[in-house]
């Protein structure tokens, strides 16, 4: 019964059984080949693609790093430090408007001008400047000042203020002359860049490190400006308590 179940007829679909058996092995082989193609060979080919892509990425990255290393090795550290100093000095180091008064006073004194009065809340600074400064990291610190001094040194004072570090911006200029003396009503402001500025060193390109010709010209320009020290003593002096007797006490 079993033998008759597995026993095939001599002819299948009009073809001799012995002839069909000849094709059985190649057919099996073909199936195995197709399976190996699907599950081994094609995945390996894909893996080659992935590995090649990785090689390209790493090679590009290495080239980029080497380029930066070459530049950084060739750059003069002292000059870099000097440029950093100029740029640091170009803005206020403290986020306090009153320090500006001290800076302006120091410049004014050189031209025999005196700060007659000042106000730290000069109202709104002109809108055209605010629009131009869309840089969120920079904070504008204005101060309203009235200066009094010799008329003939008026222009020299303004020119000196415009060549001062930290860089000063004059927002309002009003001069009233009486005899040999002038009274200048100015709104002066400067910028403060926060310390919280993050410098990401991970994804840097060479162009992020090299100063452009315009930026070099800027550094060159501000290097000719006069550095005025910010006198922070005003805000940090310690509180002193004096022991005095109450004159009304019995």
């Amino acid at each position: 019964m079993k033998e008759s179940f597995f026993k095939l007829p001599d002819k299948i679909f009009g073809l001799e059984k012995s002839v069909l058996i000849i094709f059985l092995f190649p057919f099996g082989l073909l199936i195995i080949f197709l399976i190996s193609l699907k599950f081994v060979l094609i995945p390996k080919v894909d893996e080659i693609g992935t590995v090649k892509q990785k090689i390209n990425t790493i090679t590009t990255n290495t080239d980029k790093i080497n380029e930066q290393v070459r530049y950084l090795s060739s750059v003069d550290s002292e000059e870099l430090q000097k440029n950093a100093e100029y740029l640091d000095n170009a803005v206020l180091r403290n986020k306090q408007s009153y320090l500006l008064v001290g800076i302006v006073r120091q410049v004014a004194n050189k031209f025999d001008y005196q700060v007659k009065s000042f106000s730290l809340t000069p109202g709104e600074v002109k809108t055209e400047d605010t629009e131009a400064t869309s840089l969120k990291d920079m904070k504008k610190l204005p101060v309203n000042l009235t200066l009094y001094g010799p008329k003939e040194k008026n222009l020299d004072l303004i020119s000196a203020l415009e060549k001062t570090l930290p860089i000063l911006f004059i927002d309002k200029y009003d001069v009233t002359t009486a005899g040999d003396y002038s009274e200048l009503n100015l709104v002066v402001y400067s910028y403060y860049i926060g310390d919280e500025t993050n410098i990401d060193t991970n994804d840097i390109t060479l162009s992020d490190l090299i100063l452009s010709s315009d930026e070099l010209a800027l550094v060159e320009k501000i290097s000719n400006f006069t550095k005025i020290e910010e006198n922070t003593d005003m805000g940090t002096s310690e509180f002193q308590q004096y022991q005095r007797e109450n004159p009304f006490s019995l």
Partner: protein
Amino acid sequence: MKEGLNLLPSVAKFQAAKIKLKKRVNFVMVIFLVFWVLLAVIIFGWLGLNSYLLKQAETKNAKSLSNYKSLVTNVVLSKKNKYQAKLVGQVLKERFEYGSLIKKITDFFPENVTLENFEIKTKKQFILDGVLTDGKDMNDVEDKVRDINLGLYSDFSSANITSIEIGNRGWSFEMEVNLI
């Protein structure tokens, strides 16, 4: 056989044809297997080569990174400089230089005109008060205003005298000038 004459019995003929077919199938199978093995060798070999190249690239990268890290101070400083120069450059570009403007205006008037009050309204407009000892000098001021309006001065676009007064100190005038 060459003449197409085959005297073998039909069963023998069939067996001979079957043997021939089997040989052909085996030949094709050998070629197929060789192709398969070759394909596998090429794929695995190529993968092996690429894996080796990847390791090499990773080693080079690690070496470059280590060199880069040794220069991290310069990296931070350069990046910071670039960032600050960009910010400062942007605001400085917008800065209006009052010093040069005041110099232009001072040089603009003849010596017999004394400028008393000076107010810059906007970056493009300013108002000034001047005093003259001699009324004849007012002609010079009017000539200047005419020349500005005729476009003879490259820095100024228009001007007009808004008031003239004669008082104890002589002639005084107020003038509005627009810049280009």
